[in-house]
């Protein structure tokens, strides 16, 4: 059995995080060596937390060294738990921080998913304020942004983050690892009011079924019922071919995203800004998603300094039928929302359709018409969404009907 463990790299500074070295001993009780940037202000509460947590894990004798750079309590306790688990890999107990009531809000199937902000799952500094930038969704990432050796640390940190961080009504998302490995992530995230799971490199409906089975198993064991939505990410040639089957194989799939870095690698080409190499894949994905009744979501734009490029990229995505885009820096969010916002002409047209629809409904008419044109239900649905989007972007008064 491994009786010594380390979390983080002792001696290296990382704001809002801490390094921990734990040594399980046979005698001597609990000895804590705390070096903290906030020793004066929170030294007492850190010491109390360490004692509580070690006691919770039935550790009676240990030397624990902590280098703290202003880690919040849920970060400290995640790091301590990781250290403990690395000494005792069979531990079943979880030291859960109290569920904040700001983490209990719900999501909905049809909500906007224009922007989803990726946050590395093992990097507390970037998580804490992630909800303040107005993204439609926050993705705590367990996949590519986490080093293979730190997957266990990230699972626990993300779990604690789901219970403590207020993401200000953003949809609470986690990107798990590729299936099958990602199935192991689920028990750490599913019970904590998770709204949506991103499944990377999805190629088969079977992978969706596996995730859903595992979710069901965890939910049943915990007596939970809440539906968790899925957003498969299509990142390969095979995935693109199977896009419709993936999107339509389960009720809880609400969106289909494309990941172009891996897709272009898979087809043996290079990703360009122009995107000629992926145009077929993107069009096919939009078509598959719409056919399956889910939202088509575009890939991330990776140059965080090029706001003009981002704007153009979103406008292009919008023109292809995408309704969302991934982001890797908070500054991208506003640009994305602005670019997805309806134009004044689109708003005017949508308002007329919505009013015509409402008046037809009031009169009990089955057929809606605007001028001499008949309006089909998908057009109405789209118009309603355009009006919502306009309101969301402050382009339309919430009370617009009365101002007409």
């Amino acid at each position, binding site marked *: 059995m491994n009786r010594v463990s380390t979390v983080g790299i002792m001696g290296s500074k990382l*704001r*809002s995080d801490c390094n921990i070295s734990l040594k399980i001993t046979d005698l001597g009780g609990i000895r804590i060596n705390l070096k903290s*940037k*906030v*020793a*004066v*202000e*929170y*030294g*007492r*509460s850190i010491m109390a937390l360490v004692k509580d947590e070690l006691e919770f894990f039935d550790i009676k004798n240990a030397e624990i060294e902590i280098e703290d*750079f*202003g*880690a*919040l*309590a849920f970060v400290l306790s995640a790091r301590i738990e990781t250290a403990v688990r690395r000494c005792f890999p069979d531990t079943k107990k979880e030291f859960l921080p109290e569920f*904040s009531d700001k983490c209990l809000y719900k999501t909905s199937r049809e909500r906007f998913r224009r922007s989803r902000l990726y946050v590395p799952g093992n990097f507390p500094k970037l998580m*804490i*304020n992630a909800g*303040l*930038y107005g993204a439609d969704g926050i993705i705590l990432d367990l996949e590519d942004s986490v080093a293979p050796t730190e997957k266990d640390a990230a699972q626990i940190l993300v779990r604690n983050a789901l219970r403590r961080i207020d993401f200000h009504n953003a949809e609470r998302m986690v990107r798990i690892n590729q299936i099958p490995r990602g199935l192991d992530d689920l028990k750490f995230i599913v019970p904590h009011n998770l709204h949506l799971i991103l499944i990377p490199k999805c190629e088969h409906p079977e992978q969706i079924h596996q995730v859903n089975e595992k979710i069901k198993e965890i939910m049943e064991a915990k007596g939970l019922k809440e539906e968790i939505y899925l957003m498969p990410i299509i990142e390969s040639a095979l995935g693109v071919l199977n896009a419709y089957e993936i999107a339509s194989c389960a009720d809880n799939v609400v969106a289909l995203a494309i990941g172009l870095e891996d897709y272009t690698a898979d087809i043996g080409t290079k990703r360009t800004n122009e995107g000629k190499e992926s145009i077929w894949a993107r069009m096919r994905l939009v078509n598959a998603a719409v056919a399956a009744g889910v939202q088509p979501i575009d890939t991330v734009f990776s140059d965080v300094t090029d706001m003009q490029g981002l704007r153009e990229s979103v406008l292009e995505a919008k023109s292809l039928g995408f309704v969302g885009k991934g982001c890797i*820096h*908070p*500054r991208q969010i506003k640009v994305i929302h602005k670019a997805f916002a309806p134009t004044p002409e689109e708003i005017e047209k949508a308002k007329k359709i919505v009013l015509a629809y409402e008046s037809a409904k009031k009169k009990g008419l089955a057929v809606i018409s605007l001028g001499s044109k008949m309006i089909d239900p998908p057009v109405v649905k789209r118009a309603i969404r355009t009006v919502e989007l306009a309101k969301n972007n*402050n382009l339309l008064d919430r009370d617009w009907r009365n101002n007409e």
Partner: protein
Amino acid sequence: MNNEYKLVRNALGRMVPTIINGKKAVPYQGVGKYRPTGRKAAPPISTCIDYPADGNKVVNDIKTALQKAGIKDGMTISTHHHLRNGDYVANMVFDACAELGVKDLMWFPSASFPCHSQQIKHLESGVIHHIEGSMNGPLGEFASYGKMKGMGVLRSHGGRYQAVQDGEVHIDIAVLAAPTADPFGNANGLTGDAACGLLGFALADSQYADKVIIVTDNLIDFPCYPWQIQGNYVDYVVVVDKIGDASKIVSGTTQITKSPDRLLIAEMAARFVKESGIMKNGFSFQGGAGGTSLAFAIFLKDFMIEENVKARFVRGGSTKYLVDMLEQGLTDYILDGQTFDLEGVRSMRENPRHADTSPFTSYNYHGKGNFATMVDTVVLGATEVDVNFNANVVTHSDGRLLHGIGGWQNCLFSRCTILPIPSFRDRIPVIRDEVTTISGPGELIDVIVTERGIAINPLRKDLIEQMKGSNLPIRDIIEIKEEVEEICGGQPDPPKLGNKIIAAIKWVDGTVIDCVRQVIE
């Protein structure tokens, strides 16, 4: 000496000493309440016949100049901080004093920087008795643990001018670093290897010190023009190899912050200025070189372009970003207090609309008015603010004195003072029930902008009214405080402090607004 003071409660309820380093001190009485009378201090009468007719005042070295100036134990020696963290001169001066065997000096810098940490050895050996001026970093740390012999006194840039003018501080010898000077003592900061833009912080020293020594590494033939420091005030000129490390004086390029949190706060502050109607044609604002304040100016600039608004003047802290605004016609003038990058220095040298200012023009309490009250809005930092909007810029929540006041107190007199600050730093909440040290009274602080919401001082009913219906998150300061405490894990413990007072914090009028106690390790 430290045990002689009596403590009294000042108008903000803080216990402050009535005697500082053996001199009587007046407790803070409230904003605009204290009005000293009498006549201003003045240097002794000098006579031109005592100075070389050929105008050549150059002497061999700093030591010689100090001797000629009559250096002796217990004197007050002043320096300025335009060379910032690249300054060599203040260190040279006290090394020379140590070699001369002088003791118990008072160092009166307009600010100190980490590069001055070597003064600690002079504080330990008794060459320097105490410092009256900002103590940044290591010096503050030294003082915080009670190791300085006398009590530190912190003043604002304007307060320093006030103290010199009303005789609270008498400078015996001013030693002024000059990037360019002539043998007569005319000096400026516009050219030379150590170019720093202007020398405004040295103005009071040149005018009021008994003796004035210019130290330069770029001596040019008379006349050195523009003469930001006039040779007619100067006794001696010394030439040295280097007065400073250029790379630490100004930065080649000032970088805007990449921190998403700071950008968010800066953008919210700029939107506040726009939506509150402060941003209108002919308005003015003050920007600095700090990450958030720089970003604020950039966001504001975008809004100004969008709304086709032009400022009459911008107060700096100038950087290339302000220079861009000037050159693009977005402001008529830059009134510059200190220049932070090479573009700022260039613009000041070349553009007559980029004016150099001093604490006298901008901040002085004993002037017949000053610029600070005429600025529409200013953004400033703080280490802490309390629920009554009182703010701290000098100490950290652990009690250590780590920052100077700078122009901060003086700027509070603008028409709308905004503090764009994070709601917590490294787990430590910034909004508190009570700040560790009051550096400025809440009645002058109008708006706190944090990433979690904007709190408007209840005294500013006009701003509250103006912002009704705004999409900005206007919130009660207590609500933000409670949210942050929830995140950070409750209220932080107070630091362990001793009885010894290690520094007094002066208000702009010379009264004592608060004091700093020794930190117990």
